[in-house]
């Protein structure tokens, strides 16, 4: 479900910075359905990858074989990402907060963490440079606190709180940042006026109260709340039979 919702966000011809796991599934689903000209860029250096197997890591050899270009990582980050060529970046995170900040660094304090997470990787610069960033994460109060323990990838809160896209621009961030969060129950979007994540659309059978119960701040709603269409039969067949037959990333 999350994979097909994410796939529909992608526009044909866009250049996507692909993370591993669900984003990779979503991108390949989009390529197989409405967006055959999607250009997949991996931070490992594969551009226009067309993997014949589901890549297990972002540096999988299947991303190289048959891709359009393979370049060094200095080129990926300077000539492609910082150059402004990435239309969509995908990020996940252990915590996403009210302002759309994402934490993949530590739970607890940085100096004495309860849980040490992997860190930024390319996430900080993706959230800064991609024209827009899509976040994929499962809803839970722990994952959606009022304020993340550590800002790895910047949302819309600005350095000292306060909100709105303006503060991103003031800070010199070229991209729009995390504009949409695709969860397992609903889609959240950033409200342009407040810079706050708000409820934008519900999955079938889900109520707004189900979402609010799993979010650590008083979640506002869009005035017109959308309904997310369930995956089509084609989408389900592609995901289950073609893209992830071993169910590495799909859960049912």
């Amino acid at each position, binding site marked *: 479900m999350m994979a097909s919702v994410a796939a529909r966000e992608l526009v044909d011809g866009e250049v996507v910075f692909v993370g591993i796991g669900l984003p990779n599934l979503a991108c390949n689903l989009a390529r197989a359905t409405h967006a055959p000209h999607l250009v997949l860029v991996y931070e490992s250096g594969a551009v226009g990858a067309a993997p014949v197997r589901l890549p297990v890591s972002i540096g999988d050899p299947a991303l190289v074989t048959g891709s359009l270009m393979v370049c060094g990582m200095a080129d990926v980050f300077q000539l492609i990402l*910082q150059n402004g060529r990435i239309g969509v970046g995908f990020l996940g995170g252990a915590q996403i907060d009210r302002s759309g900040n994402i934490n993949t660094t530590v739970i607890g304090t940085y100096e004495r963490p309860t849980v040490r997470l992997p860190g930024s*990787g390319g996430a900080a610069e993706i959230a800064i440079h991609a024209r827009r960033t899509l976040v994929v994460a499962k809803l839970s109060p722990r994952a959606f606190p009022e304020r993340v323990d550590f800002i790895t990838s910047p949302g819309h809160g600005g350095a000292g709180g306060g909100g709105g896209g303006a503060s991103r621009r003031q800070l010199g961030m070229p991209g729009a940042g995390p504009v949409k969060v695709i969860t397992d129950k609903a889609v959240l979007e950033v409200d342009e006026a407040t810079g706050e994540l708000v409820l934008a659309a519900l999955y079938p059978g889900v109520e707004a109260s189900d979402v609010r119960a799993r979010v650590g701040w008083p979640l506002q709603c869009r005035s017109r709340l959308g309904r997310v269409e369930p995956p089509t039969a084609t989408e389900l067949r592609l995901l289950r039979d073609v893209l992830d037959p071993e169910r590495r990333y799909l859960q049912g």
Partner: protein
Amino acid sequence: MTTLRDAVARFVHDGDTVVIEGFTHLICFAAGHEIIRQDRRDLTLCRLTPDLIYDQMIAAGCARKLVFSWAGNPGVGSLHAFRRAVEGKGAPPLEIEEYSHFGMVARFAAGAARLPFWPLRNYMGTDLPRVNPRIRHVTCPYTGETLATVPALNPDVSIIHAQRADAQGNTQIWGLLGVQKEAAFASAHVIVVVEELVDEAVIRADPNRTVIPGMIVDAVVVEPWGAHPSYAQGYYDRDNDFYVAWEAISRDREALERYLDEFVRGVSDRAAYLDKRPELAARLKAKARYCPGVNYGF
């Protein structure tokens, strides 16, 4: 031309800043194991993605400090020796210095160009500069805008795994290139470890594939399957099963010690390691997918 044992003995010293690079591809596990066998101490280990090899070196007590940007087991989970050290759970303490990938790439780029810093448009709105005072800023002399900077990284030694080189160290790589070139040029010493030693004529037949010229290489070592469980495009696939298995091994301190005792300290060299894994070739050897050549004539 030397052995890995001699190259490590000669170019890796206690207290050195050491880089074993490779982004998923061409990570020289053979060299990491040899460093553990030679019991090097107080190393500052630098790498974008510490991966299993640095987790093993941290567990073995080689590292004083880690400089990195993403410390996980890709697609699987955590590096538990690293986590224990950072979470203060009884492992040897480990100092960390943390960037993002772009920051680490830029550090190597500055080091390779022998500039003291590298400018990048990054880190605004993040907490990284708060915990890493080496992320600083510079003002553009044309526009007046402020840009982030990272300092040059100039390791004492980089160990570069590659598909092939000649005896002089002229080294060719294809597939993912990571920051192998920048790391090599940034370093005081370079050890190249290759799947295959080739005649100089092979290198000269396709000079655009050469990533590292022999003039910056101090030692050339031939070590087939030296990157396993990482991979070498065109030679063998990544051993994803081992990456999955590492989750359980590294989570359990004793299992990790047993692993090191059996597969690292308990073998004399890479050949002995491979003798213990006779199934690898059948499982992981690359299929043939040769590209056509191009014309260098005039």
